[in-house]
């Protein structure tokens, strides 16, 4: 082990200790190639990742690396992540955005499908009191439709709005059912 490697491992250990990172996570971090563990250290320090966020980042990086057969350093150097890491804004906000973006890389088709569905829902321009909720992580094919009404007239307006948008709703059901 070179001095630089020892220094980097030492810095990771110090950070892990201060964050009370579980040993298994520290071991996984230290088992990364040198470039990858340094890159993650840099991100953890820059964004002041909390313990849970480091654990999540380790999991996501590991799984992306296995699936795409690239080292974590290559993942962390992607433009969409660099932009967040080097961007303005508070550490916590950037940390949150970083993990959302990392998760989109881990689940690219889920992210695209969710985005498309959200755009379809938004395009419906439903009136206040009517809302559509997608299943969590698109884990099922069911859409939750909520109506909030204080009197029969409001209810009638909400139902009429939904009826009017039935074509758009059908499109959303189709997307949930894998058509599209």
């Amino acid at each position, binding site marked *: 082990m070179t001095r630089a490697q020892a220094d980097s491992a030492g810095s990771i250990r110090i950070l892990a200790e201060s964050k009370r990172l579980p040993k298994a996570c520290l071991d996984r971090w230290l088992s990364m190639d040198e470039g990858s563990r340094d890159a993650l250290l840099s991100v953890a320090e820059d964004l002041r990742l909390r313990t849970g966020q480091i654990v999540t980042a380790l999991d996501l990086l590991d*799984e*992306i690396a*296995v*699936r*795409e*057969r690239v080292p974590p350093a290559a993942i962390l150097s992607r433009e969409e992540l660099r932009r967040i890491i080097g961007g303005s804004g508070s550490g916590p906000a950037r940390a949150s955005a970083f993990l959302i973006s990392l998760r989109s890389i881990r*689940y*690219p*088709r*889920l992210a695209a*499908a969710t985005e498309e569905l959200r755009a379809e829902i938004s395009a419906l321009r439903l009136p206040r009191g009517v809302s559509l909720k997608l*299943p*969590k*992580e*698109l*884990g*099922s*094919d*069911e859409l939750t439709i909520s109506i909030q009404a204080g009197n029969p007239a409001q209810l009638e307006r909400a139902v009429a709005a939904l009826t009017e948008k039935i074509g758009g709703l059908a499109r959303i059901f189709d*997307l*949930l*059912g*894998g*058509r*599209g």
Partner: protein
Amino acid sequence: MFELDEVIIERRCAETVLARRIVGAIPSGVLVREIDDAREAVLPARHASDPFGVGKRRMVVCRRKSPFLMACPAGSAKFACCGYLVLALASNCPMDCSYCFLQEYLADNPAFQVYANYTDAFGELDKLAAGSPERSFRVGTGELADSLAFDSMTAMSRDLVEFFSARENLTLELKTKTSEIENLLNADPRGRVMVSWTLSPDAVFRACEHRTAPPASRIAAARAVLDAGYRIAFHFDPLIAYEGAERDYLELIDRLTDSIPPEKTSFVSMGTLRMTPGLRAAARRRFPGDPMLCGEEVLGRDGRLRAFAPLRIRLYRALAERFKRAGAEIPAYLCMEPASIHERVFGDTPAKPAIIGQRLAEA
């Protein structure tokens, strides 16, 4: 074909037909020993880095004390089930698929157990058949073990085929990922035995299905048993929704239907990869470099991870449509999916499990 470290025989089973067959068939160099009580021998080797893997290499010949016949452990009122009945003649499997649910299901007793008193199951089956003579039952041995992986040692299939071939309302399903069909080719199933293969694209076979026969060999074996008078079926289960999966599965179906006319296939089943978080953790620990275990699975309401709904429905539908285009209406069902997903894929409401079971038994 499979590597064993040792064969442990419970002393009271030493003179059974099965034990004698196994001792006569094991390769030289495999340690054989007798013990009074097999209970200790089936437990995990806690000191080992991979207790489950060690368990696979230790064959234990013992008596089964529980009933052999049981409802499929995957069955649930939440799903549109297929009415499958499981005959547990062995537990665990010498093959080592990275996604296998046995890694969690048998974590506490991973030894590869083979039950010396397996012919006791015939009494249970006769009782089942006699209790509902108007119904047909599909009974399989491939849930807690591969039906044929160890058949060159045990020759159980010969006894099973002989038994089922004489029963009007019982259909045996031998489910496998091997090409171990020699014993079958010398028996007459009289239409009462079905052999089914799990089929996966080469990418899944290479990444996940360790020590199994290649997909092309499975299709060739299916053709051979079909020609020998067996009914055949195929399980596209687990379907793994990796990038490029749809193309690969459709190509696999084309290869299958090129070799076997669709009308000769009794049924197909489909089920996307599903794992509890515990199974996923165990699988990832044992196969950390397997990319198929890092797909876009999300947690569903039943506590299992599956490909997110639109992705898996699309995949199911693509496969179902390809089979339809192949020119025959092959009965099909989805494993461990709710009725709503069945309706999305097939366009109709699934029948009750007993009815589906009856149809598949007679297909």
